[in-house]
C-alpha cells in the first residue's frame, strides 16, 4: 500500500504527496476553498515542485475519474465494515445528487432501502444523529447503517445524476 504523507499548509490548505514505484514523487494541494493543485516533484531536487496544474473541484473530480474508476466504488470497497450482516458506510453527496439541498426526510431513504443516515459530515464537522428535517448539502458525507444490499441501493439513489 502506498504511504501518503499529509502536510498542513497554514493559510493555504493541505498537501498530500507520495512516491510512485517509478520513483516519481507526486502530490495534491487542497487549497482552502475548493481549488486543487496537482504537483510533480523535481527528480534532481526532491524538495522542489517542478510541474503543477491548478484545477477547480469539478475538474479534479473528472481527473480522478480518468485516473481510475469512480471514487464512490472505491470507497465502497475500502470502507465497508460488516458486523453480522449490518454494514456501515460513508456515502458522499455529490453536487450532482438529486438530493443535495433536500432534507433527509424527503429522500425517504429508510423506507426505500432500509438504510438509516446516522450522521452527516460537513467539512470537518460531524452532525451526529440528524433528524428527518436535517438538510443534505452537496459535498456532505452521509454515514449510513443498513444491509449490504440496502447500502448499495442507497449509494445509487444518492449519487444518481439527474436525467
Amino acid at each position: 500500500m502506498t504511504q501518503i504523507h499529509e502536510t498542513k499548509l497554514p493559510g493555504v490548505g493541505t498537501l498530500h504527496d507520495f512516491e510512485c514505484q517509478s520513483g516519481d514523487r507526486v502530490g495534491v494541494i487542497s487549497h482552502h476553498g475548493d481549488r486543487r493543485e496537482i504537483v510533480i516533484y523535481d527528480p534532481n531536487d526532491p524538495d522542489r515542485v517542478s510541474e503543477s496544474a491548478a484545477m477547480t473541484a469539478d475538474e479534479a473530480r473528472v481527473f480522478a475519474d480518468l485516473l481510475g474508476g469512480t471514487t464512490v466504488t472505491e470507497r465502497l470497497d475500502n470502507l465497508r465494515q460488516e458486523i453480522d450482516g449490518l454494514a456501515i458506510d460513508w456515502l458522499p453527496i455529490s453536487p450532482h445528487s438529486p438530493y443535495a439541498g433536500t432534507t433527509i426526510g424527503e429522500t425517504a431513504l429508510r423506507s426505500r432501502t432500509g438504510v438509516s443516515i446516522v450522521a452527516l459530515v460537513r467539512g470537518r464537522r460531524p452532525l451526529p444523529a440528524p433528524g428527518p428535517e436535517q438538510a443534505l448539502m452537496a459535498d456532505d458525507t452521509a454515514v449510513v447503517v443498513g444491509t449490504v444490499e440496502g447500502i448499495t441501493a442507497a449509494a445509487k439513489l444518492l449519487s444518481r445524476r439527474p436525467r
Partner: protein
Amino acid sequence: MIFAATPEAATLLVELGAILVALALLGRLAARFGIPSIPLYLVAGLAVGEGGIVELVTAREFIESGATIGVILLLLLLGLEYTGEELTAALQNNVPSGMVDLVLNFSPGLLLGAVLGWDYRAALLLGGITYISSSGIIAKVLEDLGNTGNRETPVVLAILVTEDLVMALYLPLMAGLLIGGSALAIGIEVTVAITAVMTVLLIAIRFGDKISAVVFDRSDENLLLSLLGLALLVAGIAEHLQASAAVGAFVVGIALNGPAEHAARNVLGPLKHLFAAMFFAFFGLQINPADLPPALALAIGLALVTAATKMATGWWSAKEAGISTPGRIRAGATLVARGEFSIVIAGIAVAEGIEPELGPLAAAYVLILAVCGPLLARSADPIARQLGPRLQRTPTTR
C-alpha cells in the same frame, strides 16, 4: 444634487480619482516587473504628500480614514487565511523556529534604535519592523514561483503564522507602552489588553463555527454589511481597550470559517484592494521625501543585516525539517520580504510622533526589502544551481 454640489466636493473627486488612477498605473508597472505593488504605492504617497511633487489637500482626510479601514481589512483577510486549528498547531509545533526568528530578526532593529539613542519604545517598534516578514508578499511569491507544494514551504508558512500570532501580543503591548504613565499603570493596561486578546482569540477558535453560521447570509449585500460592520465594531472596541484595532480585525478573521469564510473572501477582497492601497499611500503621504536620502544609508545597512538574518532563520528552520541545501536557500530567500506589517508598526510610530527619524527609515527599509525580497526568492534556485550540482544530491530525510 448630491454629488459635486460644492467646488470642494468636485476637487475631492478629482484628487481621489487622480490618485486611484496613479495607483492603478503603478500596480500595472509592478506586475510587469514582477515586484509587489506595496513599494510603489508608498512612492505614490510620497509624491502627493508634504514636500512631494503635488500636495493633496482635500482628499487627504478621506485617504486617512480609508487607511484606517485598510489596516482593518488587511488584518481581517489575513485572519481569514488561518483556521483556529492551524493557529493552535503553530503554537505547539513552531516554538524553536519561532524563537530563532524572533531573536535573529527583532534584535537588529532594537539594537540600531538603542545605538541611535532613541526612546526605548521607538527602538522596540524598529525591532518589530525588522522582525516581521510580509505574509502578503510571500504568499504571492510562493504562488507565482509555483513553490506552494515545495517541501520547505510548510517551514516558511509555519514561521509566518507564528509571526502573525506574535503580532497579536506585540501590538497591544506596544499600545500599552505608548500610553505611558507609571510602570504599574502600563503593566495593568498591557495585562488587560493581552487578556482581552487571548480571551477573544479563544472564543474565536472555540465558537468560530457558530459565529460563522450566524453571520453567513446568501445575499452578498447583507453579508458584506454584516462582515464589515462586525470587523469595524470589534476593531474599534479593541482599540478602546488599547488592544489595537488591527488585532481585533485579525481575530474576527480567524473566527470566520466554512461558507462564511469563503464568501467573505469574495466580497471583501475587492474592498481590501482599494483600502489597503490607500493605507500604503497614506503612510507614504505622511513622510517628506526630503527626509529619505539622509535615512538611506542606515536603511540599506539595516536591510542587508536583516536580509542575512532572515536567510539564516529560513536556512536553520529548513535544515531542522530535514530539507536539503537548495530548499534551505529557497526558504531563507523567500522569508526576506518585509511589507504590510512593518508599515502597520511604522504607522503607529508616525501617528504617535515619538521619533521623527523612524518614519523615513522604515519607509526606505520597506521599499528596499519589499522590492529585493521577491527578487531574491526568484533567484534562489539559480543560486543553488550555481553552488554546484553536488548540492542537489544531498540525501534528504523526511
